[in-house]
């Protein structure tokens, strides 16, 4: 039907199943009367989704850059709007990350959520539908609807189950992302008027004029930069993270932030390659600013959730840095770093949630010295903190290594400027680890604390496995993205070949 799509041959529409299963799973939650049953049902349905998503990895054709497991149905023929789904090496891992994270979100809300339990889990499941859909959609209208649909359950998660300043945080989150979304819509309509289609792959590789590209790119960029969030559009993030319930923070950090960087990879680079090259130096410097700023701000935090939220700004700076160096190392590192950040930061938010359930505080000073009474807890914290600071042998090291290797090939100055961010990551993570494990001479009395129970260990263990697995054997994760990344670089490269002048301009802003 389309030459960019390999139709699904599994015998059942796996992508549609993944998108609609969570939504279908949310319906019984509205009928059920029992809160406990709702928890078990949500856990069951998210686990089923995780299992259903596994064939995506095993049946994935690593040799092609086309979109696979494709499905296409006509939706609104008048405007050529189709229901088209398909995945490639860039979205595959993000989908698997989402299906992995969701059962853990259910598990970590088991005791945390005490009011309006059933609507909470319904929100989580509706979130899952829209998140998975965003990564699969190949039609711009479908994409935009799912992108917007994501905002509402997330807004509710913060506004209903959030902390003391939940109204402020949720409104701020909503306004920021909505502002970005409006620009995204403008860009989509502009592209439709130019092409007469909403099909995303058909918009790639078209010969748009430079000015058009620059406008479209800027609209895209603002929408996605807010979502990432890139410095200086990040201010909604700490507020949202601090007030959100644990599961909300985990979804936000692990999946929602990736939407922005996914947008860069899926739309900015292939659709507006010239403009991407034109703006590349500025975005690289913004990434550096984010890395350094996130690091310093995280160092100054006394609230653990804020600390991790600012560390996210720094980590996502590495991701955008990797994307915009336009080489294999950089982009593969960036995609891997997106997965790593999802695993590690998600785990760290779960861990902070665990201490919050016990002490009802996220203050670092009040959590000082829990190591003595919660040895299992601090062991997990230790591993995830090391992962977050890119300790060799953990997942983040591989991501950061590849990103920096890509950056060094691009410009040694840019890469050298990112190094202080890596040092700062060690500083703020080790500071937090030291405080929580050891504290100081006068620690608050922590002797009433219970160590992790089996449910909590089961919540963290899968993430720990991925921390070490990606850290020591990243090949299974990098294999699936090689072809798609090579294709992406080719798409940018073709545009770059006849745009020597843009590259010359770029050289003025980036010292080689």
């Amino acid at each position, binding site marked *: 039907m389309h030459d960019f799509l390999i139709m699904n041959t599994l015998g059942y529409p796996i992508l549609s199943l993944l998108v609609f299963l969570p939504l279908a799973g949310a319906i019984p939650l509205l009928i059920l009367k029992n809160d406990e049953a709702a928890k078990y049902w949500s856990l069951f349905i998210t686990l089923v989704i995780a299992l259903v998503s596994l064939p995506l990895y095993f049946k994935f054709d690593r040799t092609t850059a086309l979109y696979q497991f494709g499905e296409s149905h006509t939706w609104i023929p008048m405007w050529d709007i189709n229901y088209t789904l398909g995945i490639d090496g860039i979205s595959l891992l993000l989908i698997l990350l989402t299906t992995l994270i969701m059962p853990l979100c259910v598990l970590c809300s088991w005791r945390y959520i005490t009011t309006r339990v059933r609507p909470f889990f319904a929100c989580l499941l509706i979130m899952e539908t829209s998140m998975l859909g965003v990564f699969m959609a190949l039609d711009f209208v479908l994409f935009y609807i799912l992108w917007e649909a994501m905002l509402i359950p997330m807004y509710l998660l913060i506004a209903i189950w959030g902390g003391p300043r939940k109204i402020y945080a949720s409104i701020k989150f909503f306004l920021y992302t909505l502002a970005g979304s409006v620009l995204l819509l403008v860009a989509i309509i502009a592209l439709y008027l130019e092409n007469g289609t909403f099909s995303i792959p058909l918009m790639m590789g078209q010969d748009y004029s430079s000015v058009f590209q620059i406008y479209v790119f800027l609209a895209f960029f603002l929408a996605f930069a807010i979502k990432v969030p890139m410095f200086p559009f990040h201010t909604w993030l700490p507020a949202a993270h601090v007030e959100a319930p644990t599961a909300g923070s985990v979804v936000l950090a692990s999946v929602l932030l990736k939407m922005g960087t996914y947008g860069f990879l899926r739309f900015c680079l292939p659709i507006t390659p010239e403009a991407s090259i034109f703006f590349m130096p500025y975005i690289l410097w913004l990434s550096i600013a984010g890395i350094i700023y996130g690091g310093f701000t995280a160092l100054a935090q006394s609230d653990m959730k804020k600390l991790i939220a600012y560390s996210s700004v720094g980590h996502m700076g590495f991701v955008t840095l990797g994307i915009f160096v336009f080489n294999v190392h950089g982009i593969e590192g960036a995609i891997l770093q997106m997965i790593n950040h999802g695993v590690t930061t998600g785990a760290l938010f779960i861990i902070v949630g665990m201490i919050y359930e016990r002490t009802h505080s996220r203050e670092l000073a009040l959590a000082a010295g829990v190591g003595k009474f919660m040895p299992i807890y601090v062991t997990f914290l230790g591993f995830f903190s*090391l992962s977050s600071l890119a*300790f*060799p*042998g953990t997942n983040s090291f*591989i991501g950061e*290594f*590849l990103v*920096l*290797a890509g950056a*060094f*090939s691009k410009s*040694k100055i840019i*890469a*050298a400027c990112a*190094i*202080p961010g*890596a*040092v700062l990551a*060690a*500083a703020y993570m*080790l500071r937090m680890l*030291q405080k929580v494990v*050891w504290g*100081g*001479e006068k620690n608050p009395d922590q002797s009433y604390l219970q160590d992790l129970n089996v449910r909590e260990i089961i919540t963290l263990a899968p993430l720990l496995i991925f921390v070490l697995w990606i850290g*020591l*054997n*990243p*090949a299974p994760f*990098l294999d699936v993205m090689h072809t798609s990344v090579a294709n992406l670089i080719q798409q940018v490269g073709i545009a770059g070949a006849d745009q020597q002048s843009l590259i010359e301009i770029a050289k003025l802003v980036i010292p080689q």
Partner: protein
Amino acid sequence: MEIASCKPLYAVLAALIGSILVSMAGRKPNFREGLSTVAAVIMFLIIASMVPDVLAGKMLKCMVFDILPGLSVTFRVDAFSMIFALAASFLWIIAVFYSMGYMRGLHEHAQTRFNTCFALALFGAIGVAFADNLFTLYLFYEIVSVCTYPLVAHHQDEEGYMGARKYIVYLTTTAKGFVLPAMILIYVLTGSLDFATNISTGIFPPGVNSTLVTILYICCIFGFAKNGIMPFHHWLPGAMVAPTPVSALLHAVAVVKVGVFSTTRVMLYVFGVDTMSALNLGIPTAYFVSFTILMASIIALSKDNLKSRLAYSTVSQLSYIILGVALLTPTAIEGGLIHITNHAFSKITLFFCAGAIYVASHKKNISEMGGLGRTMPFTFAAFGIASLSMIGAPPVAGFVTKWKLLVGTMEMEAYYVGILLVLLASTLLNAAYFAPVTYKAFFGKRPAGEKYEGVKEAPLSMVIPIMIAAIISVLIGIFPGFMMKFVDRVTPDNVAVAMPQYNPAGAPPFIPSVKGHGAPADSHEAPAESHGVPAETNGAPPGH
């Protein structure tokens, strides 16, 4: 010749599994210390069992994780790694006994955590010794940093936390700030992080920008801050708040030697003697570390606290090793490398003595130890012997180092006078800050009103390890042959090492020699060809 063998992996795992078992055996102190001992002995035996292969010129290799192309966790055992691994694993055994006596003698808390981290630190140290590439080296280097933090902060008081904080800040900042970017840049330039198989060629392809290589070199020298080169040495005196067995094994043997070993490994096997002399990196390094040698000795003179004095003495002595290697003449390199072992045995004796003195008399300052030697003769006798080694007097181990360094300095064609003066001055300084300790202890007056009541010789579990370490210090001074066998393999006689030579018209062009010729053992057929342009143009005489 390269042979695949899992023995290096087993040696590293012995320490790791040992530490896990120790952490689970907390409730039974005797069983726990038994486990530590067994792990230490097993590790030493595994390492010792590789000696024949290494002496036969073989290199044992074991790949554990293949991470990215050119990036893997791989172990290698060659003569160079043996110098460090043998000393560290042997000293772990006697340190286990010693710390048993020390920790129980002082009724220290958290002994299980102490023993677990101790084993983990050795896990990291042996991992560094057996690293086959820069990534593996960096991985285990960082493991050592993190796992020794609880040991430094052991007392959990204000002083302990401050010292430990300084420790971790210095070590991780330099590693992440310098070594990490250098490593990534080397990976970008060469596509691999594997060490070369000999000390002359290095791993850089021809035509690499020489300024860049110089910057990378500087990053590597400062990045491994465990080597104690000034100005990044402050963590070492700060870490002396740790219990003495920690200072002894870790801050005289494992941790600091990990730093020096990493530095010299990278100097010789990543950059290589050819590159270093072509870019004229050796002599400036030698003079730079000379400053550390002299300055640290002068600071040591001013310290009354015995452990502080030993700490600064360590800072000074570590730079001897780097100095020797930086001189780039075969004999000087041998002198530097043999000092890894020599200093380990002598310095551990000194720290053991300091700990024994503290356990027996609760004295920390040298000024309070007048006449104490008459009460604790064995301890102070051992201290005296080890001091002689530090000073470099025959027949103790340190003399071998001094001799080799002096001969190596004379082999240089130019700029040796300054180095000779530095060696001479530092010898005098060493004597000035070590001799009075022993002298006062035996012949000095007791401080007024001090009776040393109830003070007697330290317990046997401390004195025996002290005596063993002291005796070995003497033995490897009288019979340096055994350890020299390994050092000789690193710088085989038949490898003509290029002489550094200053060229007033500008540094010679950077032309690294042909990469990847055979192992050093079989390269003697064609030294001139295989060692490239610098060796020819400088007309280097053979090493011996």
